């Protein structure tokens, strides 16, 4: 069984980050919030494995 990756894993990290910001360009706070929520759900579904999702929820809570 795999575990949550918390070491660098994104090819071209700067490009990804710029894409993320660009996707939010020109959006109101509310629309950005909605976009983030959709993104979280899409990524969560891609991961699928409940154990990893649980680890990710914990990691995000910074606890």
């Amino acid at each position, binding site marked *: 069984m795999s575990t949550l990756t918390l070491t660098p894993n994104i090819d071209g990290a700067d490009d990804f980050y710029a894409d993320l910001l660009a996707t939010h360009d020109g959006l109101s706070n509310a629309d950005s*919030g*909605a976009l983030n*929520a*959709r993104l*979280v*759900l*899409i990524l969560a*579904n891609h991961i699928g494995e409940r154990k990893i999702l649980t680890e990710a929820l914990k990691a995000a809570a910074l606890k």
Partner: protein
Amino acid sequence: MNKIFEVPLYPYEHSPDQDELTPVRRKVVVIGAGPIGLGAAIEMAQQGIEVVILDENDKVSFGSRAICFAKRPLEILDRLGCGHEMVEKGVEWDVGKVFFGDRQVYEFNLQPEDGHEFPAFINLQQYFLEEYLINRVRELQATGAPIEIRGRNKVSAIGTHPSHVTLEVETPEGPYNLEADWLIACDGANSPTRSMLGLDFVGRVFEDNFLIADVIMEADFPTERWFWFDPPFNRGQSALLHKQPDNVWRIDLQLGWDIDKEREKRPENVIPRLREMLGDEVEFELEWVSIYTFQCRRMENFRHGRVLFAGDAAHQVSPFGARGANSGLQDTDNLGWKLGLVINGQASESLLDSYNFERIHGADENILNSTRSTDFITPKSDMSRLLRDAVLDLSEHFEFARPLVNSGRLSVPCTYDGSDLNSADALNGPADTRPGSSCPDAPLDDGFLLPKLGGKFTLLTINTDAPDQIEVDGIEVTRLALNTGTDPNSPLKQRYLGDATSAVYLIRPDQHVAARRPTYDENLFHAAVRRATGKE
């Protein structure tokens, strides 16, 4: 024409018990002639046990209330003698549509699994169910079964004793006293029995109100379940449209917390809302309107000595997922055979503690599910609304998000994992038929499996041998011998054998699995019967 719920179906009649100077002692008294009380009483009467139902009213449920009945309760009602009537009158549906704002986001088709006698669910007004149950009471009476229903008999005081329960009952002709060996309290969510005994009922109130309306209309809306999140005609709230028989449609409109209930209920306020929802051209008539606040809560214990609580008196859920009446019928299904064995001296009173354990397990599962649905339908914080809306927006475009949409998860029977009545699983078989599970139905050469199982202990053998009858401490267990034949895909094989080549199941009178092994073993199955009756 009078509606069925306006006709007294069990009008007050003078009972000779009212004339006795010393209170008459009855074996079982049931308080409440709602669906659960009636179900409990029929169950006892079918076992030949004397039972008296008391209800302060004399009519069936006013308005439709419960409308959605799932397969398991239909199977239970079949054993009580009303399952087929329900299905004949009820509306079956498979297609649901989900709307968000002013658009449809997706449509689903709940294709039911083949090989079951009863459909996955039907829609039918609660008053029909109650009417069928009352007809069944009359039918039992006609065959001499010891069952009585007393309308306008209001229980006003209860005394509990180690050997019996005393009741004070008010009638139009004045009060009388009655005693019962056992009391089953099915007196609804506001259970006076609970209050009279000073018992708790804790849980969560949802700070929301729902307008529930039954409208009669000759509209050609399809037989589908339509659920709206944030529709134009009810901004920021939800709405549901669902078909019932006789051109009656159920409409639920969420109203929010700060409202004037009396005002909202008036036809002059209800009708414009409905008109906005249904469109100007649709002709409709209001049959029934009510406003509800929903709660999810249960009693700490469903058994208090000789008083047993069932149905809404014991637990209450929000209606999303149709779990109220559905789970209440599973209570009485669980309780009936156990109380029967105790009354007949074939099991000790402690068997009734397993009713408490098993049905609390069921209630907690229902409360969890209906709480989750309610949280999705009525988000409690900005973030939960944001996520909810994200799910809905995604569901329009991507299939993955649709299972996250929660407008009610339909009631499925609970598995009594961890119950003391289960023997350890000794078969490498399907998980869905592990000990504690309710038996899934399966087609046989001559009908269906479940009707062959009900009401008694059964030894189900598949592709293997066992005695035709065993007796353990006076409890008879009858064998049902089946073979799977050559079809590798037969539902019986898939549901009861899986990878195993043979199996012996010990099945309880409520059609839950108590034990299973690949072959028969006298010692082990005798022990399993003792265990399933609270003796090991």
